[in-house]
């Protein structure tokens, strides 16, 4: 469970995020929708503690991230925009490195790795070095290492960005499966369809601030539109930066 209260962040004169508040429940997919540059990634980065908020607080499983960043980080799995894997390490070695940094013991780690290799259908590349992997294969390695410690909260920054149709479908199925396992999932997207198809709760962000939030039904009711895409455009006021 993730709770965000009045987070703000400026870079110089640019106010990237202003008073953003929302909560994301376990067993739900919460989507941050907004055009490119709206402040979605900055919000996410503050939650996974690599950016310090200028003001406001965030809690991960009721842990204050500003006071206990290390503890908070061990309860989240993050698939960020940067998904670089180590080319000279094998799939297993890549995942094992992150598992060890999460403080897992050897036996748990090996068991969990086998589980993930099967779950993500990557047994065939388990002991190959990552150099020469396809985009899809790299993504799988990045996902596996992000959730190797079986975190309760999962943050995904534009998870289907740059993926082909098949990989996008696989990714969406995987996100739903995590939700069904009771995880708290927060993802960002600038793709209206994706958010409409996946999310149980939608936070619409525009110019660094929350423009609207609620379940898909609530958003439809509020705007009196009969489809989500029209509702999004109505709320944001423009189609620019969306897809």
């Amino acid at each position, binding site marked *: 469970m993730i709770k965000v209260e009045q987070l703000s962040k400026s870079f110089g004169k640019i106010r990237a995020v202003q008073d953003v508040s929302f909560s994301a429940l376990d067993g739900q997919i919460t989507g941050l929708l907004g055009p490119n540059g709206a402040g979605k990634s900055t919000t996410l980065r503050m939650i996974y503690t690599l950016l310090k908020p200028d003001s406001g607080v965030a809690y991960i499983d009721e842990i204050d991230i500003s006071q206990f960043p290390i503890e908070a980080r061990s309860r989240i799995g993050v698939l960020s925009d940067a998904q670089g894997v180590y080319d000279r390490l094998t799939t297993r070695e890549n995942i094992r490195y992150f598992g*060890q*940094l999460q403080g897992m013991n050897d036996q748990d780690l090996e068991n969990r790795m086998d589980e993930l290799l099967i779950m993500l259908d990557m047994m065939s590349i388990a002991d190959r070095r990552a150099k020469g992997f396809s985009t899809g294969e790299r993504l799988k390695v*990045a996902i596996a290492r992000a959730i190797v410690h079986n975190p309760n909260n999962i943050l995904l920054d534009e998870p289907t960005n740059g993926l082909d149709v098949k990989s996008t479908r696989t990714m969406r199925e995987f996100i739903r499966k995590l939700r069904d396992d009771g995880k708290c999932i927060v993802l960002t997207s600038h793709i209206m369809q994706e958010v409409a198809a996946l999310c149980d709760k939608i936070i619409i962000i525009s110019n660094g601030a929350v423009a609207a939030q609620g379940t898909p039904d609530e958003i439809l009711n509020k705007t009196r539109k009969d489809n989500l895409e029209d509702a999004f455009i109505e709320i944001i006021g423009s189609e620019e930066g969306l897809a």
Partner: protein
Amino acid sequence: MKNIWVIFRKETLDSIRDTRSWMTGLFSAMFGPIMLGILLVLLGSSTQDDLNNPLTLPVQGSEHAPGLIQFLTSQDVIIVPAPADFETAVKLGDVDVVLVIPEEFGGEFSSNKSATVQLVLDSSRQSTVIVVLRIQTLLEGYSSYIGKLRLIVRGVSPEVIEAIAIEEIDTATPQSQAMLLISMLPYFIIFVIFTGASPIIIDITAGERERKSLEPLLINPVPHKIFVVGKLLSAFPFSMASLALTLISFGMIFNIVPLEKFLGIQISLNVITLIEIFLLCLPVVFLASAIQMLVASFTRTTKEAGTYLPFIALIPSLPGLLLAFFSVKSNLWLMLIPTFGQQLLINQMMRQEPISILYIVVTVLATILVATIFTWLAILLYERENILFR
């Protein structure tokens, strides 16, 4: 502690698999010793030839001065006829020098005037300097010998024309002469400590950023300073391997190449001295890795890092270059300058001079202190959020 080990192990494995990087590092570690070895052998053999081979002297008009020719022959000079166009031959370097005895020599000589001979030489040709010098010495010897004979004939002591008698007492032992060349050695040793670490440092800092794996890595629940320490330590084995390889190469060159025969000297670079130098340089491994880590962490790409780091490797080696040209005496203040203190001490170790334990302690502590400061600065850098987003 466990995390430092996890990071160290991963980075070391990753770097070992990057064969091309560490091979380049090791090659550059051998480059210095091999070059110095070749230089010593070439220099040694040319000096050797000039000093010990019998001198061959082309002479034009030898028939005009039979006495001089006889004197030269008695001094082991082989007299050969000069080539027809001797000036061109000297210009082209076919012969080093030609002695020309003009026709009037005999007449001038008999009438007690200064009889003129000409030496045709090319002073811009460095390689002929020794030959020319030997001939000049011989001719002056003959001239002074005849002059003294003439004074004695007239009942005058030859000492009246020697207002000052110069005796040369050369304090340079053969070993210390060769040391002038070999004082380049500390420079190479410090340099390879830096270059041995730099490809690894570039890969684990700028490389990590360039591959877009830095952000996922830093999201792990590990304090960022642990990453700095683990990564820093992983450069040590490579830097140490370069250092060891250089020392072994120098050791082999000074023990296998017959410098005794070439230069008439024997360098003492035995196993114990090599081990002492290795241990003395370990704090420099720390320093070289730390300062390069700090600078490489500022850079955005490996290419950018690759342009900065070689300059860092040069800075600490500059005092070593001074050593090659000036005679610098060790003192306690100089020991406070990291890398320079070590270079002075390495020099002393090679000369088998007694070394003050205090000097060693001071230089080791000073180096570790400076390296710790650089590490601390790198940690501060990694704890700032713009390590990722800039």
